[in-house]
């Protein structure tokens, strides 16, 4: 056991899976000698060579489509999209192809592939290096969507994703790549895709979050805890398929829900959580369901004060927790 960063845990998962299974290979832009623009694949080209770590043409559609074809022909590709913002040329291949092939062939073809993409703002990335895309893709049956919030989960969930027989969109909080650290065991372990995780027990209200926002929610919960507000924190981890039981069980306990996400508020992931709580948790509801999310503008603006205005962070989250606790 040693402390590692989020990106080190992700690299370790890929390294171990490449060593464990010769069917696994990586493709994407700059993943080879360069080791990826964020260094997620650093050292892997030297270790596994050009037939396992394949620099792709600068063309996202085919990074995914070639992965789909390779997956149908018996391999397990890990396709890296350099920034989640650039995944949209591959939307048709992900949504109309990867996600639908198992269903449309009556289960005779499977697409065991992972699409990794760094997402999220707060890094001075402006409109096109900051986007959160999880709501769009969580809407798609047949696709699994996973967002780890800490290094332990990142390694275990990525290993599960690589071994999964379905296409998995694995979103990584780029802001947290080196900021979020945690204990990561050496060697093989997995964290299952599906179950959410209650990362902090509390009684006054439940906060639902994932990825970078979960990291900030931990800080905010600590802060308001000093004021006597007891926050229960649910790390959703897998956005599709969603662990509804854990979502509802926590709500039954606290009766108050705050959902935090940095994607645009309107029809964001929190809207679905709110709808589930309203549908199936109405009898336990003690307060209006709250969402704290990014504003409904076309992107995270670049200039520092504008970015701060856009991004939810520990202070805004703590304020929302206080408001909900006081209701």
């Amino acid at each position, binding site marked *: 056991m040693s402390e590692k960063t989020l990106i080190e845990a992700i690299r370790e998962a890929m390294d171990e899976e490449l060593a464990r299974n010769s069917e696994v*290979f990586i493709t994407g832009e700059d993943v080879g000698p360069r080791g990826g623009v964020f260094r997620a694949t650093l050292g892997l080209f030297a270790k596994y060579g050009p*037939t396992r770590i394949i620099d*792709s*043409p600068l*063309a996202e*559609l*085919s990074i995914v*489509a*070639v*992965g*789909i*074809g*390779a*997956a*149908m*022909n*018996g*391999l397990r*590709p890990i396709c890296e999209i350099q920034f989640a913002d650039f995944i949209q*040329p591959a939307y*048709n*291949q992900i949504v*109309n*192809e990867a996600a*639908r*092939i*198992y*269903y*449309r*062939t*009556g*289960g*005779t*073809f*499977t697409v*065991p592939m992972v699409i990794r993409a760094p997402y999220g703002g707060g890094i001075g990335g402006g409109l096109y290096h900051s986007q959160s895309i999880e709501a769009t893709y969580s809407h798609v*049956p*047949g696709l*699994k969507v996973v967002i780890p919030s800490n290094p332990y989960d990142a390694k275990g969930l990525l290993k599960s994703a690589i071994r999964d*027989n*379905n296409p998995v969109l694995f979103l990584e909080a780029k802001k947290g790549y080196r900021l979020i650290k945690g204990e990561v065991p050496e060697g093989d372990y997995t964290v299952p895709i599906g179950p959410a995780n209650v990362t902090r027990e509390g009684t006054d209200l439940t906060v639902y979050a994932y990825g970078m926002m979960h990291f900030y929610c931990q800080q905010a919960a600590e802060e308001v805890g000093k004021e006597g507000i007891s926050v229960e924190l649910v790390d959703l981890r897998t956005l599709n*398929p969603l662990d509804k039981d854990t979502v509802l069980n926590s709500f039954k306990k606290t009766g108050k829900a705050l959902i935090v996400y940095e994607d645009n508020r309107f029809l964001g992931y929190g809207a679905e959580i709110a709808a589930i709580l309203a549908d199936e948790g109405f009898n336990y509801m003690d307060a209006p369901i709250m969402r704290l999310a990014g504003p409904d503008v076309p992107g995270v603006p670049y200039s520092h004060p504008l970015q701060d205005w856009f991004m939810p962070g520990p202070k805004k989250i703590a304020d929302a927790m206080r408001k909900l606790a006081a209701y």
Partner: protein
Amino acid sequence: MRGSISQGETSMVMTVAETAPRTLDGLPAELLLDMYYAMLRARRLDERCWLLHRQGKIAFHISGMGHEAAQIGIAFAMRRGEDHFLPYYRDLAMVLACGLTSLDVMLGVFGKKDDPSSGGRQMPEHFSLRSKNIYSVSSPVATQVPQAAGVALAEKLKGGDRVAVTCLGEGSTNQGDFHEALTWAGVHQLPLIVVVENNGYAISVPMVQEMAILHVSDRAGAYGVRGVTVDGLDPIATYKAAKESIDIARAGRGATLFEVRVVRLTPHSSDDDDTTYRSKEDKVTLKASDPLPKFREHLMQAGILTDQQDTEFGAKAMAEVDYAHQTAEAAPYPDVEWGAGPVYAP
């Protein structure tokens, strides 16, 4: 298919064969007759689907009539059922040659439970058959082309000797998927044949408004792959050219953009009316280009095919289509639970 000829007919064929020439254009008579029957059967099945649509028994049909010679020429040059095949919706003759049966197709057309392509989930002509390496057809065009590059890449990484063959129409070559796929094919010298079935129309839009070049294969040079254009109305020419391209791919010497010039004898689909964009005169010209009677004539003139044999082939094809149609129509629909999934693989 010829293995099912009854004992009496077999001896008749042998009698004919004793006096008939053994080869034509360098190909054995046996192979040519198999190819002819494969074209004929696909045509009869295709015609039946149109009939069923006009009778209101099925919701949709999209046709491969006029493409059969090209498809059969290519299919017979493949290791059928072993080489990877990523078809598009006009590839009826080719999927039949690669392993789907007429009954399989009819089960799909009627949306029945035992449709091996999708269990009745997909529209007609959205073929697949895992056991014969026939991959799944989608409606958004050209998506299969970069997937075929991935199939071929995996084959190369695994050290296998199967090639990947994928088909699309010439209109679909304008999609970015096509461009990206050929980029990978060239960079990685993939064992891939990208077949463009060029019938001159993207639904209603003529080729002159689709691209400013005369041959789709002119695009090959830009990607560093071979480019070939073949008369797709001639199954023998297509077979020979396809064989060469497949041999090159299998030997690890790279991909081919393989254009076959064909005709679309029908409207785009059962829901199209081509009289709004093709004149009566055009249709007469089209009919004269029909590859099926042309191939029949060619084989008859060479003494490979006799009238009697052709009649027998026709009867056999009709019997197969009748059986497929009647069996599929009487077959059970899927249970409604089948609509709900499974959505995810275990």
